[in-house]
């Protein structure tokens, strides 16, 4: 029963992702990554025995801990990559704003026209 529930939840979440991508709330590239993650989670939900086998192989006594550890590690990496990308975008944005203001100033000085409204 639990496998049916987890599998069902996985498909519901995949459906939500599809909606977000269709409505342009989520970029397709990010949607692909999340879809893969949820598909894997849904499949594992239908076949939890896989975790028992893998846990036994790597020496983890309690199999669900392996799943949780992998999930936490993946989320940490995702969060770190997001912050790195945010930093890059923030710096890029700042430099573009600076460039815009300098170009606008020079243009206004040359043309004598007032600056554009935002």
């Amino acid at each position, binding site marked *: 029963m639990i496998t049916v529930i987890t599998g069902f939840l996985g498909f519901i979440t995949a459906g939500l992702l599809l909606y977000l991508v269709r409505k342009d709330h989520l970029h397709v590239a990010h949607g692909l990554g999340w879809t893969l993650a949820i598909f894997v989670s849904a499949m594992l939900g239908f076949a939890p025995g896989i975790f028992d086998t893998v846990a036994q192989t790597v020496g983890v006594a309690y199999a669900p801990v392996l799943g949780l550890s992998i999930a936490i590690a993946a989320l940490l990496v995702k969060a770190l990559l997001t912050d790195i990308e945010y930093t890059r975008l923030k710096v890029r944005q700042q430099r573009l704003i*600076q460039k815009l203001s*300098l170009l606008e100033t020079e243009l206004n000085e040359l043309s004598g026209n007032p600056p554009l409204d935002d």
Partner: protein
Amino acid sequence: MTTLTDPASVAARHRAAVIIPALNESGAVTAVVQDIIDQTALPVWVIDDASTDDTAEKARQAGARVISLPERLGAWGATQTGLREAKRMKLDWVITMDADGQHTPADIHLLLEPIREGAADVVVGSCTERGSKLRHIAWAMMRLTSGLNCRDLTSGFRLLGHKAIDLLSGAQASHLEYQDVGVLLMLDGAQLRITEVPVTMPERQHGKSRIFSSWLAVAYYMSQTLVLGAFKRRPPKLVKRWR
């Protein structure tokens, strides 16, 4: 009236400017700009950090060249805008000053002396007499974490030579949020010669500090600055005191 030695020839001989980042300083900017122009004959650039008052207009009327940012970038972002323009125009040096009247134009000649003698790439106008006991404790903590032994770590009154202009106008410097420890560490890391000269700094005439506007702002500033200092510190190097 105290003037620079040969102010007209200084401005003509050295391609230079005074850069003033300004956020809602309409109360002080007119006097500051006029004072600098009267005493030094240097071009004044006011970088308006998306002010909501008439700072830009008042600065323009006072004789400054105004560069207006469409979005607020903070004091360092605004200063870097001026530095990027200085690099584009291939200026020899720039002076950065605050728009609130805390820095005295008459002291600009003190910052010029080490540059004229070729003894420094960066000159910091230092006034350690100012500020509360808490500020001095903060400075001590910053010196401890960063390894910088500059006495006045937060002074915005600086002269930057062309090497410093090139370095600080680059993308790496855009990662910085404040103009003090991070900037000094970057200059130190590039082996630029940093010198301090004592200057006078009267109390702020208008407005209030943005960094120390609330305890939360102070906590954010201090935690960021201390962590940055610890992560980017280099072996201690003596910052020269100019005479």
